[in-house]
């Protein structure tokens, strides 16, 4: 789910890997972009699905109220997590460069930040 985030600016596909951690994962926030990318490098998913049916624009990632939610009715899927994050960031009005983990992900050869250069298919239902 696409959400605004105070430190990383946006919580998207790669940051989802925080969810597999238990214990004192809060400590990782001291170097959040590096941690997000390191976690993403751990495993290459076959397909990543991003839910942007409703996105949270402010007061995220928890908290916020319904005024901060925008309804997009969009679901995106990609084999490239970095591209998907770049696309997600654009939904929040952020350029890929504004979310540090996207650039770091590209450096780590996890994917491409320029999602428009990929073969994008749009399906309306």
């Amino acid at each position, binding site marked *: 789910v696409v959400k605004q985030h*105070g*430190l990383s600016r946006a919580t998207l596909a790669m940051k989802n890997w925080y969810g597999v951690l238990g214990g004192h994962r*809060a400590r990782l*926030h*001291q170097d959040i972009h590096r941690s997000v990318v390191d976690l993403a490098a751990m495993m290459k998913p076959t397909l990543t699905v991003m839910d942007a049916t409703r996105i949270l624009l402010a007061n995220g990632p*928890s*908290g916020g109220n319904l005024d901060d939610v925008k309804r997009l009715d969009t679901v995106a899927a990609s084999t490239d997590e970095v591209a998907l994050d770049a696309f997600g960031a654009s939904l929040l009005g952020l350029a890929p460069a504004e979310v540090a983990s996207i650039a770091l992900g590209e450096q780590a050869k996890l994917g491409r930040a320029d999602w428009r250069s990929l073969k994008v298919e749009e399906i309306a239902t």
Partner: protein
Amino acid sequence: VKLFVWIRRGWQAVFLGLFLFLVAVTTASLVRGYPVEWFLGLDPLVAATSALSAHTLARALLWAVPLVVLTLVFGRFFCGWICPMGVLHHAISWAARARRTTARVAGNRYLRAYRVKYWILLAVLGMAIAGSNQAGLLDPIAFTWRALATSIVPALDGAVGGPYQGLRHFHWSTLVAALFLAALAANLFLPRLYCRVLCPLGALLGLLAQRSLFRLTGDRRACTDCDLCAADCQGAAEPQARLRVSECMLCLNCAASCPSGAFSYRFLPSPDAHEESIDLGRRKAAGAVVAGLAAVPLARASDGVDPRPDPRRIRPPGALPEHRFLERCVKCGACMKVCPTGGLQPALSQAGLEGLWSPILVPRLGYCEQSCTLCGQVCPTGAIRLLSLPEKLGQPPREEPVRVGSAFVDRGRCLPWAMDTPCIVCEEVCPTSPKAVYFKVETVVARDGKERRLERPYVDLERCWGCGICETRCPVFDRAAIRVTSVGESRSPQNRIMLKGGRL
């Protein structure tokens, strides 16, 4: 008659099972609308102390009224048929009973020490009159609740991996379990020692049963003085002589063991057949009441109630103002058991002597979940009011949420403040909108001389209601770098900082 003994055992099993069921479902995921407060609601001691101290009865406590009426008519059957702690005492004293009948008869003689429970009752009522409800310390329902909720169930859970996510910790609850297990172990020395000597609820029911309309009555003409009736008498009511009505728990063992069938349960039997009086001693009884009355100002001289609160005395949302809270809470621990985060803990010293084992929020262990009002739902006494969610959150037309305390950043321990290191966890988890924890982006010169931009957390006390999730989640491991104290709590007009906000 044997049949009736089996029916009594059946009821005991049913009520113990029901009690354990209601304790077991008192967790956030299972509680639904179960009346988990029912056993304490049935408890006339809790109702009596609540009525004397708070001058009101919470709705759940109205169940005590029919029990009082039934006791006036039928006697002290609650102890022998319903009380879950009584069932445990009964079972253990049965398992540990002496082989020789004469030894059992001797163990069931009435002792003058059995009057102590009446003095305890009077002292507890005295404390209630003085405004402090201490019924829960020795009341068997509250005691059993507390021991199960804060120690025995979590210990079982930790041992076998039960329904909680991980092991729950309740501060110093081993002490509660040790006292509870000691009370059960006392049956090895004397059957039902706790019920006979200490139980203030048994004492209250004994007083009510003193002139009960129905009584077990032995026919002296049929009696052969074999004393078998006293071999298994639960209450030490001496059925072999003149049965002591106030001590009789109606377990019916006397009737079942009488070889000549001399016992019957009679309506308005001749008073000569029974010992009705309880020799409390007028001066001793008055002394007990006075001791109870005096204990409260003494306890308050040590800790006070409202003017000088302990900063750690963070009460659950919906808790009444402290004086009114202490008039009601019986420390049963249901709120602690149902709390989904495990943050509600039994107080040791944080709430004063009177508040021993009453609930306080310890945010380092668990926070107050924004969308949860379960502690008020399960509270039997109304010490924690049941809030509606809009009321708790202060949704319009309300102007204020229910505040339990306020958060403060400890700049000496906070990563961005003290270590020039980024961290945003407190802001990230803050559930209010807009967030009470917010950042100011500040450019600092680090030790290496380089400039660094840091998001440093601040707390907006107009937004913060003290849920404590920032303290729970703060990555500074032992003592968090953001901590909640009770100041700003809605229930107290004194415990305030801000001029604006937090009106009652």
